[in-house]
């Protein structure tokens, strides 16, 4: 588990999501990366049930249950600003039993799928973010395996991102900012994905070229 940076790639002008992904993957292959299968990260949202809310009528908290194919036997559960739980895959079964307390928000399942490339110590995953049948955006995840402390290798990661993302290189993720010298863990990756998915959900639907 190395330091990972998750960012969103805006769709190129006049092109569809698929074509932009195609562009990126071609750039990576020219760079010399080798394709090593596919990856998938998905996320489901749950509301805390109304019956458990206090008399003050505060808004129910949102809980996200996520899976990552990089950690096939784990399941991640996180609150917005709260803790992130890493559990066994039996957690999904547990959520079914907790139907009374957590209700699934319908049509909120969001996932990203795509190819996985290995370039020496870097693992690059370019995924299409889909919500239901429609593609909503592009996610790019880059992991630098050897390093586990974020502050030490952020500059190297940035340089690598610049090499194939060009001008769309993101800034340092907020997760890094919190604890500079703490060891990076899989939970931080999932937090980044959760923020990305939330951002994409709030965005308008990607305008299909030609309608306007």
């Amino acid at each position, binding site marked *: 588990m190395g330091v990972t940076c998750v960012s969103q790639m805006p769709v190129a002008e006049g092109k569809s999501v698929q074509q932009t992904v195609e562009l990126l993957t071609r750039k990576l292959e020219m760079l010399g990366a080798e394709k090593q299968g596919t990856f998938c990260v998905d996320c489901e949202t749950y509301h805390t049930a109304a019956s458990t809310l206090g008399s003050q009528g505060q808004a129910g908290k949102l809980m996200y249950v996520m899976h990552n194919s990089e950690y*096939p036997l*784990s399941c991640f559960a996180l609150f917005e600003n709260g803790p992130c739980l*890493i559990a066994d*895959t039996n957690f999904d079964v547990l959520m079914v039993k907790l139907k009374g307390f957590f209700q699934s928000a319908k049509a909120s399942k969001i996932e990203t799928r795509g190819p996985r490339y290995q370039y020496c110590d870097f693992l690059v995953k370019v995924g299409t973010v889909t919500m239901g049948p429609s593609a909503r955006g592009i996610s790019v995840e880059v992991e630098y395996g050897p390093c586990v402390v974020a502050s030490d290798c952020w500059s190297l990661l940035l340089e690598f991102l610049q090499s194939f993302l060009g001008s769309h290189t993101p800034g340092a993720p907020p997760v890094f900012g919190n604890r500079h010298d703490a060891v990076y863990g899989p939970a931080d990756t999932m937090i980044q994905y959760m923020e990305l998915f939330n951002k994409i959900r709030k965005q308008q639907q990607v305008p299909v070229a030609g309608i306007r």
Partner: protein
Amino acid sequence: MSGVRAVRISIESACEKQVQEVGLDGTETYLQPLSMSQNLARLAQRIDFSQGSGSEEEEAAGPDGDAQDWAGAAAEQDDEEALVKFQPSLWPWDSVRNNLRSALTEMCVLYDVLSIVRDKKFMTLDPVSQDALPPKQSPQTLQLISKKKSLAGAAQILLKGAERLTKSVAENQENKLQRDFNSELLRLRQHWKLRKVGDKILGDLSYRSAGSLFPHHGTFEVIKNTDIDLDKKIPEDYCPLDVQIPSDLEGSAYIKVSIQKQAPDIGDLGTVNLFKRPLPKSKPGSPHWQTKLEAAQNVLLCKEIFAQLSREAVQIKSQIPHIVVKNQIISQPFPNLQLSISLCHSSNDKKSQKSATEKPGPEDHLYVLEHSLHLLIREFHKQTLSSIVMPHPASAPFGHKRMRLSGPQAFDKNEINSIQSTEGLLEKIIKQAKHIFLRSRTAATIDSLASRIEDPQIQAHWSNINDVYESSVKVLITSQGYEQICKSIQLQLNVGVEQVRVVHRDGRVITLSHQEQELQDFLLSQMSQHQVHAVQQLAKVMGWQVLSFSNHVGLGPIESIGNASAITVASPSGDYAISVRNGPESGSKIMVQFPRNQCKDLPKSDVLQDSKWSHLRGPFKEVQWSKMEGRNFVYKMELLMSALSPCLL
């Protein structure tokens, strides 16, 4: 009573003073009696003033019970017998008078009875009948008789006990012949697990409690043997207990592992003959149910081994797929080599006994691998019970301890793969078979070379301590008679699973494949190099000087195996030189260089004017090596060298 004379009675006051203490010389110190006021105070304390006359009867009594009773009695009397006058002033001697009166009455009655009894008309005194006292005897006789009696009593007890013991010993001996069902059941329980279900007694002969996960139930039933005719004589091997094993575990089974050179036709697959191996000899004292159950357990274990192997053969993807046909698994560890693992299960039917007449060939069946399979499956059983797996939380699946943590600690694929052991039973046994085959082929190669070639000699020293996947052998190439001088070729061969690694004495490491030709070629080339090395060592000993030496000469005909080596040595005086070229295929070629003045056919020229030039070495002449005397190359070389060094005497 009125006519009786009055009896004089003397009265003495009994109020002696209480003794407070008795001094050491016997004098007594008395407590002073209470004075009038003290006595009054004591009596007044006993009065419970809270007790009114009849109004507060239920009040709890004070600490002084007497006062309560007195007051209570007083209250009761007042309540109940209001007419009876309470006489508070009873004179103090009243109790004395009463006691005396009752004593007088008693005495009068006694006097009357005695006077009547004295007459013996209406009442008599009759003594209580007693045993007649024995005549008074001397004390010794009495002691003798009493001792005799007690001894007789003790002897009686001992005899009774002895009788009981002899009876039980006799019973035991009888029991050996006529065994009781319960005692036999007890013996059975000492070896096998039994449980009672309803009115049946069932037992467990599976390996489940030892860690096996095979789904066979493995239950046998214990039944009473009642088909015995009590009138006839009980047979020697009669057993009141019989076990009924499941029908699919009857007979005996074993796993046959064999390696064959050529692959048979596809049509021949699955027709492995079920050789009836003779039943293993049971221990002489063990009852017949023990052998039966042990054989059934062995059948179950063989079935489990074969089931595991066939499951892996189907699931695991390998370059050359394994074939599973009926009771045989066939795989190809090396090209042109076939490994077959078959489950041979022969039931005890009379029919099959007749058909199985073939005897298994000894080379065919690799007993080592069969034993290895049994060990491997037992190790697999132990793993399910090891501390890595047990104890486990109730909600976790059965498996390695670290796998349970892989979820909560977010292990990625590399870490998960490192925990799971990837090798299954089949892979392990194939590796072992490959190693055994490679080892035997290496040994055969070395042995064939050693028997074929006499000069130089090959010696192979196999190591005693081997691994299942690795063995080692030290190969020495020497010349007979010159072992101390020529020992430069020493090879350490490590035979692995698929290749042989050779470590040379000079530090080179060479990896040879499983082809036997490679090893043979290598050894031949080493042998030819040895000859040249031997000449070098011999030259040192003989005092000859090495002029040139090369392990791999680039001149002359090309060898197909390895390279030729060559050496040139000069005699101590410098007159002669010997040049040797030895190749694995071309053999050895020896040339001797003579000084110029010994060659007669040299063309005279005018260039050389001085006669000293004729002492230089000149042309070469080949030696007919096959006609040389000497039993091996080095001996011949030594003879040649000594022939060319002139005697100084």
